[in-house]
């Protein structure tokens, strides 16, 4: 009787098995650590008109609410109507080629379709107004848009990300006058401040905030 398997074969088999196990484990860990929704974070999204928040907000100092008018009253913050753009751009840079789609749309010759940067699944009902009212500032989710030439996403917007804050909102709460501060960072006494804001804004406990019906209908 002879050996069925050569020593070379068994060695390879052994090495292969070890490698497969290692790769599988590494893949699982990597997957879980990086598991996200459909997000692509940090990648600027192309737009038909290269609108720069950096220029408009950072350089010109336009307030968020000048364009996103409904952010304090509605679920939807509001994409500015073309006439808002035209308050300045009927005068400024009217001949610049990048603005051509805007003008064409305003004159009814074409449709201007912005590409969504922050897109939640259709079964998620996010409401801007209540987050603003309760002390969650713009930059908490949208980042410092005043530094973004083209807007990109800074957060994954997936459920674990939402849930993390809904379980413990205090670290992300700020006073009402800092809501639109795009460079707000938690002060050293954030623990106490957050607790105080929780009470002041009547923010309910995590059991309420993580109820399924809070976000899904």
């Amino acid at each position, binding site marked *: *009787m002879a050996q*069925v398997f050569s020593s070379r074969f068994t060695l390879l088999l052994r090495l292969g098995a070890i490698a497969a196990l290692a790769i599988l484990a590494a893949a699982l860990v990597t997957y879980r650590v990086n598991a996200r929704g459909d997000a692509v974070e940090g990648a600027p999204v192309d737009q038909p008109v290269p609108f720069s928040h950096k220029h408009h907000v950072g350089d010109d100092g336009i307030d968020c609410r000048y364009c996103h008018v409904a952010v304090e009253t509605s679920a939807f913050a509001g994409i500015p109507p073309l006439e808002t753009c035209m308050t300045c751009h009927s005068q400024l840079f009217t001949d610049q080629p990048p603005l051509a789609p805007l003008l064409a749309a305003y004159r009814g010759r074409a449709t201007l379709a912005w590409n969504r940067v922050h897109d939640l699944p259709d079964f998620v009902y996010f409401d801007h107004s209540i987050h603003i009212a309760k002390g969650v500032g713009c930059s908490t989710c949208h980042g410092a848009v005043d530094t973004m030439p083209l807007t990109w996403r800074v957060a994954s917007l997936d*459920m674990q990300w939402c849930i993390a804050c809904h379980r413990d909102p205090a670290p992300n709460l700020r006073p009402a006058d800092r809501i639109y501060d795009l460079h707000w960072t938690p002060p050293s006494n954030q623990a106490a401040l957050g607790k105080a804001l929780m009470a002041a804004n009547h923010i309910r406990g995590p059991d309420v905030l993580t109820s399924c019906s809070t976000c899904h209908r």
Partner: protein
Amino acid sequence: MTDESALAATPVLAGRYTDASITDKIADIVLVRPAHWGWVAGAFVSGALAILFLVAVSWLFIDGVGIWGVDQPVAWAFAITNFVWWVGIGHAGTFISAFLLLLRQRWRTSVNRFAEAMTIFAVAMAGLMPILHLGRPWFFYWLIPYPDIMNVWPQWRSPLIWDIFAIGTYIIVSLLFWYMGLIADLATLRDAAKKRWQRVVYGLLALGWRGDARHWARFDSAYLLMAGLATPLVISVHSVVSLDFAIGNTPGWHSTIFPPYFVAGALFSGFAMAITLAVPMRRVFHLEAFITERHLDNMAKLMLVCCFIVTYSYLVEIFMAYYSADPFAIAMVENRMGGPYAGVYWAVVLCNVVVPQSLWWAGVRARPVALFAIAIVVNIGMWLERFMIIVTSLNRDFLPSAWHIYVPTFWDFATLLGSIGLFVLLFLGFLRVLPAISIAEMRKLARDVGAER
């Protein structure tokens, strides 16, 4: 050989065999003998049905569970019936291999291997059914706990979650148990095989088994432990399956008798399926010496025992309905016996209560063909029983306004018949690539029997 004592005296191994001749007789089926025409015909028919199964499942995934006849209020029907039926069939295999091992029943030896294979394929069919019946089968893994990005976990109070664990454990333990028993035989095949690829394949599967006595000692210990684990497991599995219904509040489901009722029903159908498979198998592969009338007789007797437990359960259901004076339970019983599905109920009684009574006669038990016929009837009866439990409970429950009939569609039948086809195909494949009877254990049996003579 038609009287009781003669049948009981039939040996569990007919004829005289040496270690070598047993090895050859069993291993040659796999390694040497060309395919028997009966096998080919069976493979052809079951293959065709398996293709039907694939078509049915493909269409199911494309169009949705609406292709079946399920409706409101009968939201479960064929798929779950098939599921319970297949799980039940699996149970006899485990019962034979584990329970009888613990009881040191010698007749177990020549039937346990194929019975375990039957278990695995049946449980595989069963495991498919709940996934197929999901509205969104591609999310079936949400029933398994893992740290997902939704931060949501399974809901542990649901019997369906218990099912996942029960069926999952069951199929894993059955596979391990089966494989453990196979290791020594795989080594035999490795050493007996002439073809290089057979030696490699069986060699890999045999894990380098060399019959070391210390290994045998550990093997015996582990194998016995596995049998000890599999025995309560098999009872728990069908108990959990029964809880899929008993936890529900539907009249006809919500009953404490369900776990033993289901376990007995499972063994009933399982032994019927074992007989269904054994009778043609021993004929086609000339294994009459190994699987003797004694084996068939024992399985038939067990069927008869199960028949009585099942019958008792039927009677208890009726008794409890009237004894409890619960109008919903009474209505359920009367609906079963006289409602739109009364035919199913009475067919169940005929198949599961009346026909098996013929097993009282040794003459019937001694005739493989008769046993085969009865086993088929019981298989059908047990399928219908699950259909009866599921559908005739759901179709008329609490609010008469919601009552609605259930009518199966072509795709319901295609899925059922297709799964049978796939099961048989897998089983036929098993017969050709693995020893259908445990060679190592048969050697020992032959020696023990020889020693007694």
